[in-house]
């Protein structure tokens, strides 16, 4: 990738007793090395991309330790890698974004969990839930329960997170079970510190090789071994895990004087709960709470004895559990029923079933709980009034603002090579009418947002083409499927292209090739021009497509909008049957700018000729119709006050952030919009000849120029005002 993580890599080298400062996900990375992992694999995705990105840059350190890093092409591949820990005492970790990544990985995970592990296997999942999430809203908890893997949900502070990584490996080994460590977005990005330990060289690694393969049929996922494995899960692994968690006190209990009630929470929500209690005067800034707290740093399995111990003698407890279904609340009710304890369990009755538990949500939940239970010696009114104050603040703001402010949906960046594809599709729509578009996952999913509003379904990563298989045959024109180069290599080649060809699909596939896994932070792909080992990865999308029998294959450069329109139209209308694939090529502009800006600056400094492009709009020619913006949505293409006295509607304008990609000019050309756009290239360090020529040209042009407009004479009153102002 184009970004460098040099500083982050340094912090991975910290030794015994030093202090680490940094983000949560980086702390996890450091903790993996402290735990002596042999191998790490993963697939990028917010909020855990950094783990792999930083390790890629940490190659020398990994080489020293003998740790193998795999930048997997999908979560399934990353999960399958954990198979190394089934037979051998190798500690390993895999990471991805959840729940989507876990969905992809679950085939391997089920098998892994059934076989069980000898070496510790840790899965670090970035729980992309709530504000800022880019995926469907589901819980990872279900995966833990169905496959019997343990789920850690540590308090969002670095020492706890790091401790849970280290304990997670031990837990995995004593219970022969893979362990998932769940981190929410804010926890991944939380900046804090912890005391480090020295990195540990793994027992077996590239430096210390395994000599004999281990064959043990009981670890093969075939009957009858699978029956034994299931029994082993319930008879051995679960009890061992419960014992370990309880003995090592991975869950935490904090006492309080209001012992009549209690709050149970997922570890990740601890800080939010404490702050809510602080707000209503029931805790201090250091977490000393008047209400006893039971913090589940391990949310699966529950430890029945601990739950019972916490609840005994309590009138009621509040279960703070984010997401749905309410697995924990149900499980706690079961524990209490079996223990014959009469403690009432509140949770989803005072907290919302769906959605992120922000501080406001939790505050409302705590207040609702206190109101329902009305415990002795607790100032319930204070909580109630705090909630009321929140409501009043918001109501006041809304009434002063006169209504909600307009949303600001994400969109393609300035200069994005994907924008022109959708501009072209919009232009094509005028000609052929709209058709069904199966969108895919990636930056290009933003086509479904304004101003394009293109894309009728999104079914999953790399599944754009596959998701058109059913609708295509029933549609009155060819349907279009989108796929990014990320999705292509993730599974689109097989699930999409091979399947489409196998089934004689007659649709159109647009492969958006920007050279990176851009949406997740510019990781390299098999078809990138670069790879971890420098130089290209040696795989091409064209080659792969031909290999699976694609006959109709065209490559277009996305910024040439007219050509994109032409090729799309051809694909839509040709008599040729079979899958038609268009590779729409253009390097991710953010990545390109990162590189090119530095190069240009260097060249200018060195006295070399550089022409810096930018676009402009003639504000006298623009009539303020804004078609150009409707067909582009570029952040650098904006509007400004019309300088013309006679006109009122704002005119289009290109702001400083323009990188000169040329899309606005090309769109205006392809859609025949208007002659307002022009491109400028400012030449730095021009050669002697160019300078002389420029001088001559400028003189001739000045002489040729059309005479200026005669200024409008001032009206009598105006003239006096102008004089007074002088």
């Amino acid at each position, binding site marked *: 990738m184009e970004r460098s993580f040099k500083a982050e890599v340094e912090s991975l080298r910290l030794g015994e007793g030093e202090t680490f400062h940094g983000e949560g996900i980086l702390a996890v990375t450091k903790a993996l090395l402290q735990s002596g992992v042999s191998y790490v694999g993963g697939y990028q995705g917010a909020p855990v991309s950094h783990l792999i990105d930083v390790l890629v840059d940490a190659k020398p350190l990994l080489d020293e330790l003998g740790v193998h890093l795999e930048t997997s092409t999908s979560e399934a591949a990353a999960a399958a890698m954990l198979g190394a820990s089934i037979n051998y005492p190798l500690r390993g970790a895999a990471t991805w974004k959840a729940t989507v990544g876990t969905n992809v990985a679950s085939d391997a995970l089920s098998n892994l969990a059934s076989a069980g592990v000898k070496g510790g296997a840790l899965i670090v999942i970035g729980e992309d839930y709530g*504000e*800022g999430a880019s995926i469907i809203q589901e819980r990872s908890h279900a995966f833990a329960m169905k496959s019997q893997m343990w789920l850690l949900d540590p308090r969002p502070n670095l020492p706890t997170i790091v401790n849970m990584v280290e304990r997670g490996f031990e837990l995995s080994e004593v219970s022969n079970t893979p362990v998932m460590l769940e981190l929410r977005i804010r*926890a991944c*990005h*939380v*900046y*804090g510190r912890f005391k480090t330990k020295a990195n540990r060289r793994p027992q077996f690694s590239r430096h210390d090789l395994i000599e004999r393969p281990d064959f043990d049929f009981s670890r093969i996922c075939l009957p009858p071994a699978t029956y034994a494995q299931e029994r082993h899960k319930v008879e051995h692994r679960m009890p061992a895990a419960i014992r370990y968690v309880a003995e090592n006190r991975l869950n935490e209990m904090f006492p309080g004087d209001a012992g009549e009630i209690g709050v149970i929470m997922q570890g990740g929500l*601890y800080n939010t709960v*404490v702050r809510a209690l*602080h707000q209503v005067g029931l805790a*201090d*800034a250091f977490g000393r709470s008047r209400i006893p707290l039971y913090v589940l740093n391990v949310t699966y399995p529950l430890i029945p004895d601990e739950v019972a111990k916490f609840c005994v003698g309590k009138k009621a407890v509040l279960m703070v559990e984010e997401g749905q279904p309410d697995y924990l609340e149900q499980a706690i009710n079961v524990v209490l029923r079996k223990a014959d304890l009469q403690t009432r369990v509140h949770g989803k009755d005072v907290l919302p079933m769906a959605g992120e538990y922000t*501080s406001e949500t939790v505050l409302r939940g705590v207040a609702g709980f206190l109101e329902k239970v009305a415990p002795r010696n607790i100032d319930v009114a204070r909580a109630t009034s*705090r909630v009321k*104050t929140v409501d009043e*603040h*918001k109501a006041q703001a809304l009434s*002063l603002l006169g209504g*909600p402010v307009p*949303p*600001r*949906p*994400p969109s*393609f960046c300035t200069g994005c090579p994907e924008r022109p594809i959708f501009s072209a599709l919009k232009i094509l729509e005028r000609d052929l009418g709209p058709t069904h578009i199966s969108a895919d996952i990636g930056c290009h999913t933003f086509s479904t947002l304004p101003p394009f509003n293109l894309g009728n379904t999104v079914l999953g990563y790399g599944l754009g083409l596959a998701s058109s298989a059913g609708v295509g045959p029933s549609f009155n024109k060819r349907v279009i499927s989108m796929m990014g180069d990320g999705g292509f290599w993730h599974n689109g080649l097989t699930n999409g292209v091979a399947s489409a060809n196998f089934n004689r699909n007659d649709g159109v596939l647009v492969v958006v090739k920007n050279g990176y896994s851009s*949406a997740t932070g510019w990781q390299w792909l098999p078809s990138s021009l670069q790879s971890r080992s420098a130089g290209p990865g040696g795989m091409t999308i064209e080659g792969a497509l031909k290999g699976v029998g694609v006959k109709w294959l065209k490559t277009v450069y996305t910024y040439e909008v*007219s050509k994109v329109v032409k090729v799309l139209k051809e694909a839509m209308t040709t008599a040729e049957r079979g899958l038609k694939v268009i590779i729409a090529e253009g390097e991710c502009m953010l990545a390109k700018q990162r590189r090119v800006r530095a190069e240009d600056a260097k060249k200018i400094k060195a006295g070399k000729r550089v022409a810096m492009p*930018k676009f*402009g709009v003639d504000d*006298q*020619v623009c*009539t*303020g*119709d804004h*078609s150009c913006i409707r067909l582009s949505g570029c*952040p650098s293409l*904006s*509007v400004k006050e019309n300088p013309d006295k*006679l006109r009122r509607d704002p005119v289009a304008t290109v702001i400083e952030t323009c990188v000169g990609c040329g899309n606005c000019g*090309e769109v205006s050309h392809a859609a*025949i*919009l*208007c002659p307002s*756009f*022009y*491109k*400028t290239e400012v*030449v730095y360090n021009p050669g002697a000849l160019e*300078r002389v020529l*420029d001088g001559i040209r400028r003189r*001739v042009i000045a002489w040729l*120029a*059309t005479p200026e407009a*005669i200024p*409008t*004479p*001032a*009206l009598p009153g*105006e*003239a006096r*005002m102008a004089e007074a102002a002088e």
Partner: protein
Amino acid sequence: MAATDPRPVTLMIAAMGGEGGGVLTDWILTAAHEAHLVAQNTAIPGVAQRTGATTYYMEIFPERMPDGASEPVMSIYPQVGDVDVMVATELVEAGRACQNGYVTPDRTTLIASTHRVYAIAEKTAMGDGRLDTTQIETAVRRMAKRAVLFDVARAARDNGSVINAVILGAIAGTGVLPIPAETFERAIRAEGKSVDANLRGFAYGLKAAKGDIVELRPRAAKPAAATPSEVLADFRDRVVRDYPQTAREIVLEGAARCFDYQDAPYATLYLDRLDRIAAADKAGDGTVTRETGRHLALWMTYEDVIRVAQIKTRTARLDKVRAGAGAKPDQPVIATEFLKPGIDELCSILPPVLGARVIAWADRTGRRDRLHLGLHIRTSTVFGFLMLRLMAALKPWRRRGYRYGVEQSLIERWLRAVEAAAGRDAGLAREIAECARLIKGYSDTHRRGMGNFQRLMDTLVEPALAAAGDKRPDFYANAAAAIATARNAALADPEGQALTRTLDQLATARA
């Protein structure tokens, strides 16, 4: 657990992608670290680099913690009513912060930029979709305990700095965080990138927050130097003599525009035409005359290839292009124009009979939308410039072109309607005059606008005027309202779907 409990000082930053929010929080963390304070930051960068809103939330515990003491529990979420400093790098984002409850009068110091980054819905409107932000500005001032509002983007630009450095200065200047300004400066130095530029921005922000800088307002355009202009003086005198005060400025501008566009007789034609409206509007306050004058001038100076070439080949425009590109005087600037003339553009300058025939042929064979000549003209070269300049030189020929006749007869049709209405009802006349606003843009856009305009004339305007003398009360008011509704519908979507719907509804209502 009294109210005097120590609590973390909280800071929330609502930024947009690319504004350096990450660096800003790093500076603050470095400064807090140097001040031996426990600080925590978290972010929702989500789709940050992709232009979406990005928020950072930070807590700093104001007391030094002795080694080994239990640490405060920091929240990773901001709380309504508990934000000490709210930063918004754009005005509507400040509004959003208020809407979400993060700016409260008892606690929050708000630092916000007054500049606008328009949301997509504001930009894509066919007319003017921009939000009126006066109310937002008033609201955020009312909601904040203290509001530091200034144009941060401009401050950064003027000081050769970046938004995040100016913001850091402003944060330091409010004095709410338990960290002195010098410590922040040291953090900038420690980071070591673009130190001077960042320190300049920091210093400005610091002063702005301390109230040492009078708030920046957009520079008001200086009134143009009143060059006495013999040529236009007659028109000025005529306007002053014949037109009400309210209309003069626009009418004179319109006459000057027609003069620049064609010649003195054309400007005279403009005023002659407008005289009719002024006469019919005598009883009114001049608004109808002014608004008709505005649209008449714009219509009479319709943007044909000659006009576009004229504008693009003027020295003032060339200077503007250089300035927009940010070129220094000695730097060559390569300028490329994106032009795509087609059948319409060609016919506009052909003789009427020929032009009409070609258009008819093109329509018949479906070539009108298909035949175009895509040109990338380099106007920084003599040859490229000359091409445009010769086009501009066709000005005298314009009257003999096909389009001239077409436009003039449509103008007359519209003008007759406005005139007829002006004699009866100023409100109706005003709405009819406004319909000319639909006609703008080029090629397809222009034709679409023209089509919508004619639909309005056919279905609403002319029938209303034909029913002259209708004695029903509110007849004119209803007609005016219908026209306004349909016109707004025509501006709602480029495909004209809303217009069709609206016209259908109006027809049903009448039936």
